[in-house]
């Protein structure tokens, strides 16, 4: 296979022309099928990400991204493929976020979680099936992402996020997603992200309820939300987490990741959305 991320160099100009010619010849109606990606990867010793990048730069859209329509342009898709995101926690929120970011075509993802799948995860964690009980969550995530989109490189880190190791764990990361399951770790994550100048997409869930906000560098949004909090968890300790709440909040977190990386739309900076799925209400809180 081709050179590993992030290098993307073709030494000879003639090689580039050959690949362009191949892609243009085999692109059907301006799109590139998976079968042709596999062929190009084999023939030219390139990674799938490199094949997709060359295609997109030549105005050819891999079929897997075709239905993103005009929502994501080829230029946007290129930016996403060259991006590096991190998902901290690979359970309810983190599992869905990882799945969505793989389908989105985020080129590189560092996924951090120390745990293995347990039976009580089955009600809500998208990556948990009866076949993977006892297996490390980040390993299962890695397999799943390879099955969905081999152009995405997933770096599995089977460890707890900590303030001490955080800076090395998040080196080179452009945006971080909070999929943690306790408040003290969230505060530490927010502090590390702030110190490193990396945007953090905070999300948390409990019962019928969930919240999401985006902390940009220099803000202390998450620290302000949980200021002086002495407990480990919140209402989820008694209400639990039903299947639908992680799916909702994780989808919103993935949308925020996409916008942060593309610099488009209006992110939840200094705003928090608070969802109540029992009464179907949403509050926007100015923080």
């Amino acid at each position, binding site marked *: 296979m081709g050179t590993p991320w992030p290098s993307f160099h073709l030494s000879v100009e003639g090689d580039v022309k050959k690949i362009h010619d191949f892609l243009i010849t085999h692109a059907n109606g301006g799109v590139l099928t998976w079968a042709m990606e596999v062929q190009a990867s084999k023939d030219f010793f390139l990674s799938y990400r490199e094949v997709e990048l060359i295609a997109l730069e030549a105005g050819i859209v891999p079929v897997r991204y075709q239905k993103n329509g005009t929502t994501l342009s080829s230029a946007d898709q290129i930016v996403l493929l060259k991006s590096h995101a991190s998902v901290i926690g690979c359970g*309810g*929120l983190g599992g869905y976020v990882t799945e969505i970011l793989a389908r989105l075509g985020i080129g590189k993802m560092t996924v951090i979680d120390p745990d293995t799948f347990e039976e009580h995860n089955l009600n809500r964690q998208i990556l948990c099936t009866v076949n993977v009980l006892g297996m490390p969550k980040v390993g299962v995530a890695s397999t799943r992402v390879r099955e969905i989109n081999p152009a995405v490189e997933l770096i599995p880190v089977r460890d707890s996020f900590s303030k001490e190791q955080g800076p090395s764990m998040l080196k080179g990361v452009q945006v971080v997603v909070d*999929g943690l399951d306790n408040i003290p770790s969230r505060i530490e994550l927010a502090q590390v992200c702030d110190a490193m100048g990396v945007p953090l997409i905070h999300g948390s869930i*409990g019962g*019928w*309820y969930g919240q999401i906000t985006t902390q940009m560098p220099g803000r202390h949004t998450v620290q302000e939300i949980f200021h002086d909090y002495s407990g480990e968890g*919140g209402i989820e300790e008694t209400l639990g987490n039903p299947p639908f709440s992680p799916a909702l909040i994780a989808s919103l977190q993935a949308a925020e990741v996409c916008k942060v990386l593309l610099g488009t739309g209006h992110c939840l900076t200094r705003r928090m959305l608070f969802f*109540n799925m029992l009464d179907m209400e949403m*509050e926007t809180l*100015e923080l």
Partner: protein
Amino acid sequence: MPITIKLFASLRRGRFDVKEWGYVPGLTCNRIIHDIGIPEKDVRLIFVNGRHASLEDQLDDGDTLALFPPIGGG
């Protein structure tokens, strides 16, 4: 004018969604939370007229107080 109290999420259970509360000078967020019977640890975010507030903040005639619980699951 009375204070309007809005409770969110699980804080509504066994209590109310919205309620009017008699205003008296010097009334604080903390005092109302105590009088409603909500344990202080069950309240995480306090907003007065849509602005982030703290337990010790005093309320004015006609203010709206909104209370949210802590959510920490993932």
